[in-house]
């Protein structure tokens, strides 16, 4: 038996404390009222939330679209304006370039990076070769075939006769 049994019995007298016999039904009525208020409050809160969500949706969406479109246009304009200009290349040069094997250094470069200097040199060399062929035909007979060597061509591009010695007239009558 507990040494505090007297104290426990004394404290147990508190079980006779009561709120009154009508308390339970009054309490239940208040509980129902509270439930109704809470349901109404939740409904109005949901309504407010839905309206706010719709308002902000209409407010925010056009701005985002506008901002995205503006940014895209700005990026496009910047890209166009900042990209380097392509040089004018005629069709003959393009054919010569295509006929010749492109050096490795040019192959790895981006498509838009046109090495105009190299093309010009190639063009110049071909032009000189053609001039040399035409000139050699002028100073030589038809039997003499133009050679591929560039010996007849001077680097300066000026036409140089194959020989300064005049050929006999009989050579021209064949």
């Amino acid at each position: 038996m507990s040494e505090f049994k007297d104290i426990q019995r004394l404290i147990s007298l508190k079980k006779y404390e009561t709120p009154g016999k009508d308390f339970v039904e009054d309490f239940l009525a208040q509980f129902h009222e509270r439930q109704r208020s809470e349901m109404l409050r939740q409904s109005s809160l949901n309504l407010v939330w839905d309206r706010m969500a719709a308002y902000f949706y209409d407010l925010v969406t056009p701005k985002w679209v506008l901002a995205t479109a503006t940014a895209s246009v700005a990026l496009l304009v910047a890209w166009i304006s900042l990209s380097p200009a392509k040089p004018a290349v005629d069709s003959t040069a393009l054919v010569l370039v295509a006929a010749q094997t492109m050096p490795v250094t040019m192959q790895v470069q981006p498509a838009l990076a046109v090495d105009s200097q190299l093309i010009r040199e190639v063009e110049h060399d071909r032009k000189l070769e053609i001039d040399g062929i035409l000139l050699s035909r002028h100073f030589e007979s038809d039997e003499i075939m133009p050679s591929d060597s560039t010996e007849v061509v001077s680097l300066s591009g000026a036409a140089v006769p194959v020989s300064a010695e005049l050929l006999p007239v009989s050579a021209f009558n064949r």
Partner: protein
Amino acid sequence: METADEPTKLRTSSAAEDRVLVDRAQDGDTRAFDDLVRKYTPKLYGMVYNMTSNREDTADLLQEIFAKAYRSVKRFQGKSSFYTWIYSISVNMTLNFLKKRGRYAKVSLDDVDSSIHHDPEFIKVTTSQKDTVREVNIHELQIRLNSAMMHLSEDHRTVVTLYDIQGLQHNEISKMLGVSEGTVRSRLFYAHRLLQTHLEDLVK
């Protein structure tokens, strides 16, 4: 002090009735929940009142407790009895309320049921006897008991309320509070010792 056969049978049949009401409440039957409110309001009121010693706070808190129980009843899985479940909710919410309220709160006393006059202990305390310090009336006794309870911490007041006033067993209290039975017993021992220092003159 441990459970006898008769109270056990009563508790078992009560648990079965609760199960039926809870199932109906979970299906949306509000009248079934009303029946649960009617059944448990007196007991829970007593528990909360003895913790707070304020009838207005008790009524407000009880509304909160049943509102929470109503919102949570669909999640009640029946692992414990509805009785244990709702008591646990009540204890936790009351303790949280007391922590927010603070130590010094106004005491407002309930009425006392007239059947107290037939209680032997009450008669013993209020009847003049040669070894009693003095007589006390009901009102004074009520004030003294409430004042002594308010000197206990919330944890000690809880176990005294559940064990001495509500008549629950150690194992039931341990489940409700989520502590071991040993903890319940040690808290009770300390609480009784403290109460004795405040109420000694009434029991001599």
